[in-house]
């Protein structure tokens, strides 16, 4: 069993190192989208806060599915309750 655990730990460490190596690859940073948002967000959407302009106008799918995630987690909490009576 200890051999199994050693192999599993080695594989996990390798996966972690590869993930860190992939994520830390910032050699060529492309900021054209961010520059566009910073320059044009107030003119396009009339929102002074650029974050609101992004999450309610440019990326409104993102906030819709973020609220859906909360709805699904509420359903999961209700479904897996220890007490089964509903009200």
């Amino acid at each position, binding site marked *: 069993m200890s051999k199994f655990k050693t192999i599993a730990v080695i594989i996990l460490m390798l996966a972690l190192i590869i993930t860190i190596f992939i994520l830390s690859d910032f050699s060529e940073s492309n900021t054209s989208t961010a520059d566009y948002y910073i320059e044009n967000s107030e003119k396009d*959407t*009339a*929102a*002074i*806060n650029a*974050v*609101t*302009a992004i*999450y*309610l*106008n440019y990326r*409104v799918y993102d*906030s*819709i599915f*973020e*609220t*859906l995630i*909360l*709805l699904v*987690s*509420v359903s999961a*909490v*209700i479904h897996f*309750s*220890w*007490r089964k009576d*509903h*009200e």
Partner: protein
Amino acid sequence: MSDKSYLMSHFIGFMYPIILLIGVYIIVNGHQSPGGGFHGGAVLATVFICRYLENPNEDLRIHSLEILEKLLFFLILLLPVVLLFNNISMSIISNKLYLLIMNILIGLKVCTGLSIIFYRFVFYEGGGIWN
């Protein structure tokens, strides 16, 4: 020894309107200052947690909160579909109104969702220890 702390109940009664004011301010000013629906909704959900600390009774109708949350999600889905995805070029005022309404809807939905999760964890997860 009474089961309700004098200090906690009075301090929470003092903090109630301040928390409500901060939450509503964060939601309504979401398009002008840092904040928005998600943060303001989390602040508003604190009011329900304070309500539990002050008065731990199961007299809140959680089922109506669930129905309200589903209705709010339907409205959040409906508003961008009607306004944004139809290639209607919205003017400045209408887009500000759209941002305000979406922030209010998202804030109320996050508030109801977090309150439901909190009350379900408090009252429905006991494992037979308390009853």
